[in-house]
Structure formats: structure tokens, C-alpha cells
């Protein structure tokens, strides 16, 4: 029932939000700088946003191979 609690809460709000905003604002700048730097140093590797999951690409060659075999066989039988 003490007002210490309230003042601790206010402190948390003040320093907490201050830190969050300071850190993320800084991160905006640092990230932008990082992107600019990276894209100047290694400009060629830009790729589309669509990222293929690793497992799919590992499975596909085998799948493709099996399917091709099946289709070849099917064509051969005709």
C-alpha cells in the first residue's frame, strides 16, 4: 500500500519504453546501414522474397527422378 510501488512502476514505464524505443530506433539506422553496405559489397546475390524450404529442395531431385521414370515407363508401354 506504499507509493514506492507506484514510483517503481513509473520508473519501469519511463526507462523501459525509453530503452525499447532507443534500441529499436538505433536498429532502424544500423539495419539500413547494414543493408546498404552489404548490397554494395555483394551486389549480385539479390534474390526474390520467396524462399524455398531446404527439405523440399532436397526431396525434389529424387521425386523428379522417380516421376520421370514413371512417365518414361508409361510412354514406353504405349
Amino acid at each position, binding site marked *: *500500500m*506504499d*507509493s514506492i*510501488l*507506484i514510483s*517503481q*512502476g*513509473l*520508473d*519501469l*514505464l519511463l*526507462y*523501459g*519504453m525509453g*530503452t*525499447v*524505443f532507443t*534500441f*529499436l*530506433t*538505433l*536498429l*532502424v539506422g*544500423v*539495419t*539500413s546501414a*547494414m*543493408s546498404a553496405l*552489404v*548490397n554494395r*559489397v*555483394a551486389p549480385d*546475390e*539479390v*534474390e*526474390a*522474397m520467396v*524462399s524455398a524450404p*531446404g*527439405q523440399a529442395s*532436397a526431396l525434389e531431385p529424387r521425386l523428379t527422378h522417380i516421376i520421370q521414370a514413371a512417365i518414361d515407363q508409361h510412354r514406353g508401354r504405349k
Partner: protein
Amino acid sequence: MDNLISLWASSGLAQIQLGQLVMMAVGLTLLFLAISKGFEPLLLVPIGFGTILANIPGAGFDAAPVYDAFGHMESPGGLLYYIYSAGIETGLFPLVIFMGVGAMTDFGALLANPKTLLLGAAAQVGIFTTVLGAVTLSHFGILDFSIRDAASIGIIGGADGPTAIFVTSKLSPDLLGAIAVAAYSYMALVPIIQPPIMRALTTPAERQIKMEQLRPVSKAERIVFPLTLLVLVAMLLPDAAPLLGMFCFGNLMKECGVVNRLSDTTQNALINIVTIFLGLGVGSKMSAEKFLNPETMGILALGAVAFCIGTASGVLMAKLMNSMSTNKVNPLIGAAGVSAVPMAARVANKVGLEANPQNFLLMHAMGPNVAGVIGSAVAAGVMINLVSGM
């Protein structure tokens, strides 16, 4: 005859207390919400089941092992005791989950438009105003929360389960059950909680703002970003390093492209195993004495407030940014800054489509959405630091 008495005396019916019965009903309710209503089932199914197990009278699921004077085990502990003390008290499970979440996170949208980090920052206002609300309730003697409790309650507003569990297990382990349940329940309720607030704070014209297409992001940027974030955290906010460090590690494994087998396991077997045990362990803290009290109602109420304020802050921040820049953002994506990945981003997209059926905001909302994860991890770090010194 003695045996019959022993059997009856050890039966649940003979031992059960009303509180345990009510807690079993709570567990069944959580399971119902998870299974029938789709409330975050990956966590609420294990938490609900763990709640029931922990409240079976005489089953000893959360009993500690007993050792004799020579250190030999006289009777082993219960399953939930081992899970809790090995994985939650130590903080290991939330950290491993965070690594898995990192390995499933795509920072592409954030990298294409880093300004959206500010939306993820703004939405954390919900966390800290809720802390203030909790200490005010305590100040006026309405409920009884310490500053540690208040901080743990506030983190519900971070809309991020592992972060909430990590902070609460460090600051207020007794509230773990209530806070985890509140956090996951409100994350599931995001499609109901957020839209009215989003509509109330925006004009139709604002909701129709079309954002320019996101630029493609290079593989190198994606690899360097988690390392940049890590170094920044290391230099400025080491208290946030456990959570953000593991998050960045998971993301680096995913993006670097040379350890796909580790990344796949992190995203599948490892995170699934830890999720099961994390949920059961949280359930073990759902005892009647800790859950069936007015404070739990207060936690649920404050948690809802936290989500609402976070949503509003995100939207208002977006409007503020628009007033200062010509490159407009649709303020609806500000609501995604609370985290609740990817639900909040989908909600932003849906409300946007209501206003303009051609306006797809999903990718744009993913930026503030993942920024919100960073934001609440930062908030968690600073809270643990400050509260520990109070």
C-alpha cells in the same frame, strides 16, 4: 481389509479437494478451447493436460525426489517436477523454443522496410502501462502484486509466449500458470480483440492506403542481419542477450544455408519435443492455491488491457509516422507490432481487405510483426535488469 482401506484411502475420490476438482475443470476448459476453438493448440493442449495431471490427488506428478542422508534416491520425483526443474526453472526450454522460432522467422519484410521496427517498439507500450496498472491495483489494496509480479503481468502484452514464460519463471514463478494461460489465450483471441480497436482509431481513407511493393532482399543481408542484431544487443542490452541471442542463432542457422540439417531439426523435432514438455511444465504450476484467487482474475483483466493498449499504440505510432513522412504506411499494420506472429499480421491483412479488396497488407504487416518479437524481448531484458535491482 486393511488393503481395501489402503486402496480407498489412496483413491482420488477419498483425497480430492474442491480446488483440485475446479482446476481439473479449468484444464478441461483449456483443452476444449484448444481443440474446439483452435486457441493456440500447440501450447494449450499440453498446458491443459498438464493442469489436469498436476491436480490428480495422490498421483505425485509434481513431487520432488527424496534422498537419504547418503544421497541415494529413496523415491523418485514426479514427471512434471523433473520437467519444471530441468527446463523451466533453468530457463532452458523457453530459450530453445526461441531458437526454433528464430529458425522459422523470415526477416525479409523487416529488412525491406526497417522503419517498421518503430511500430514494433510502439506496441510495447502495452507492456509497461499494464505494469503501471498492476502496481496501481496493488497500491489501492485491490489486489496484491509485487513489482516482480507486475512486471511479469505486463509482459503478457508482449504477445509472445516464450518471452512471457521466460520472464515470469525468473521474476514470479508462482504466477507462471496464470500468465502463460493469459498470454496464449489472448494470442488466440487477437482476431477478436484487435479489429474493433483498429477500426476505431483509423479512418476508412487511412485503412485504404496502399503501400509500395517491398524491395527484394539479398541473401547476404538476411545472413548479416541476425549477427548485426546480436552485436547491438551484446553492446547495449546484455540482459536481452539470452532471448535475442538464441533467436538470432536460430535465424542464422536458417538463413546461412550451410547447416540446413541443423535448421530443419531445430524447426521440427527439437522445437516440438520442447514444446510438449514446456506446456506440461507450465501446467504443473496450475495448482488451486496459485490459480484460484482474485489475482488470477486481475491477471486476465490486465492482460486483455495490455493487448488493447499495445494494439492502439502500434496503430497510433503508424499515424504519427505518416504525419512526419511522405512515404505513407497503412496504420493497420501498426497493430501487428504486438507480435502474436503470424496471427496479428493476418488480422491486419483481413481488416485492410475489408476496406479495399485489392490491398494486400500481409507482407507489409510481417515487418512490424517480427519487430514486435524483438521489441518484447528487449522489454523483457530491461525489465529483468531493472526489477532485479529494485
